[in-house]
């Protein structure tokens, strides 16, 4: 039976990669009509770089992603630091509260934000997108950094204190340099989460602030084009780069 499970799992791994490989392969397909494979080309890629409307949505997504990730990483750092270093009463309560956005279905967060923004007369646009994305990236940013802080050797800060360093100096010269990789990881994961978000963006974007996923979604409704496969391939590549930069150990800390 174990052997059957092993074979089944190998098939599952194939299942996980067949779709990704298909996107990559078809992005080089010369045929424009349907999916008849007629030869190799890279001109879908050059088309992408000349699609001004697409590039505009890409710019929006990058701006929103960077802003949301910066804020989420900073707030996540403060939160994680507080929970890891200080004996705060109701620690479990605070942690639970910060993890709410992971439990509540995204669509509920999205519609409730829309209602609040419209009831206070706030125009949807870059700002509302950023606020929405902060909500969903904050739990991730907090967890990544909290994991790294829990793994630090406590004797390091004790040693610094024994050697006469004040709290601030200990933080700046000893703790922060050690935590820097996890800050970067939190930023990258938050950026990726924001960059690929579609649910929150559906409700918080406005006229002229269409994000890349919203644009992909609306073109998909009229049909899949080879350009989209090319774009998909670039996004897969981007994912691989992010995972490489974040590292397996950090990923494992939050996911499993």
């Amino acid at each position, binding site marked *: 039976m174990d052997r059957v499970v092993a074979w089944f799992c190998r098939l599952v791994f194939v299942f996980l990669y067949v779709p990704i490989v298909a*996107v990559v392969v078809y992005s080089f397909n010369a045929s424009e009509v349907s999916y008849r494979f007629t030869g190799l080309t890279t001109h879908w890629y050059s088309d992408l770089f000349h699609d001004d409307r697409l590039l505009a949505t890409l710019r929006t997504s990058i701006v929103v992603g960077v802003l949301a990730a910066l804020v989420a990483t900073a707030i996540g750092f403060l939160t994680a630091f507080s929970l890891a270093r200080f004996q705060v009463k109701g620690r479990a309560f605070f942690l639970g509260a910060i993890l709410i956005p992971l439990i509540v279905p995204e669509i509920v967060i999205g519609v409730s934000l829309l209602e609040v923004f419209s009831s206070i007369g706030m125009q949807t646009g870059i700002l509302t997108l950023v606020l929405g994305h902060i909500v969903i990236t904050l739990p991730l940013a907090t967890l990544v950094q909290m994991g790294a802080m829990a793994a630090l050797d406590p004797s390091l800060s004790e040693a610094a204190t024994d050697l006469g360093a004040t709290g601030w100096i200990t933080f700046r010269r000893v703790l922060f340099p050690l935590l820097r990789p996890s800050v970067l990881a939190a930023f990258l994961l938050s950026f990726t989460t924001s960059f690929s978000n579609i649910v929150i963006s559906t409700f918080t974007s406005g006229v002229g602030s269409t994000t890349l996923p919203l644009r992909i979604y609306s073109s998909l409704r009229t049909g899949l084009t080879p350009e989209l496969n090319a774009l*998909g391939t670039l996004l897969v590549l981007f994912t691989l780069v992010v995972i490489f930069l974040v590292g397996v150990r950090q990923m494992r800390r939050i996911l499993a």
Partner: protein
Amino acid sequence: MSASTATAPARGLRAPARGTLLGYLLLLPAVAVIVLLVIVPMAVIARQSFALSDPLLGGTMGGFTWDNYAKLFDPVYAKTMGYSLGLAALNAAVCLVVGYLLAFYISTRPANRQPVLLMLVIIPFLTDFLVRTFAWITLLGSGGPYVRIARALGFDASSLVPSQFAVIMSLLYAFLPVAVFPIYASMRAIDPSLREAASDLGAGWWQTHRRIFIPLSATGIGSSIMLTFVPTLGVFVIPVLLGGGKDPLVGNLIVTLFTEFRNEPMGAAMSMVVLVLMLASVAVITGLLRLLSIRSNRRAA
């Protein structure tokens, strides 16, 4: 996301008890985000779900009514509700079985190979959701690999997009990694010698899992159901792109009610249903887990 990281007491950075005020101050920004951008908005939605809708202009007119909830039993809404719950249950069940087997498989590989296998699950998980969805159009659509291979084998195959099969496959593809992670996290904590002990004592494959691995990974199994069942209800991209929009899920209904019909109170009521189902699933699962641990403690004693 795993419960183990979330609840583990921090060891590394403990400071002296003084400076606790600073600790609370540091929590302030996060609390502000959660209160202002999650709690208050959900309270607003809860309020809206009892409001009267403006039949002419759309939007809300205030007031108080149970009508929006009563309308959920109208055939139009009830049908979508029933279909969504069925599909979500199916997806959660398939994700659970496949996720469990995959998590078990990974956790029983040599320690140095586990990170690689885990990484193979993480890569698709972090790949853009839309890319993972439209990949299925490529695979199953007209002229795609599925049709060509099936025809080459002599079957009379045609495009599977749109179809329910395509919806189910892409839902499974979207949710499988989330089902694997928590189960793997609890499997990793299980002493590997238990497996040998079980087989030495003559337990078969199924018995080993039923008596040892399933109870010991119950927390992970619970989280995996929580992360797949109710969230499937809120999906709206997959039914449109792969199902042709014929069988909408609750998520599609919510989007339509808000963005097209501008019937915000009705949309709010539907969102509340999703939220309440989520809370109910969390309550039921944690309740069951507690029951299970009481039972096993009693047996041990």
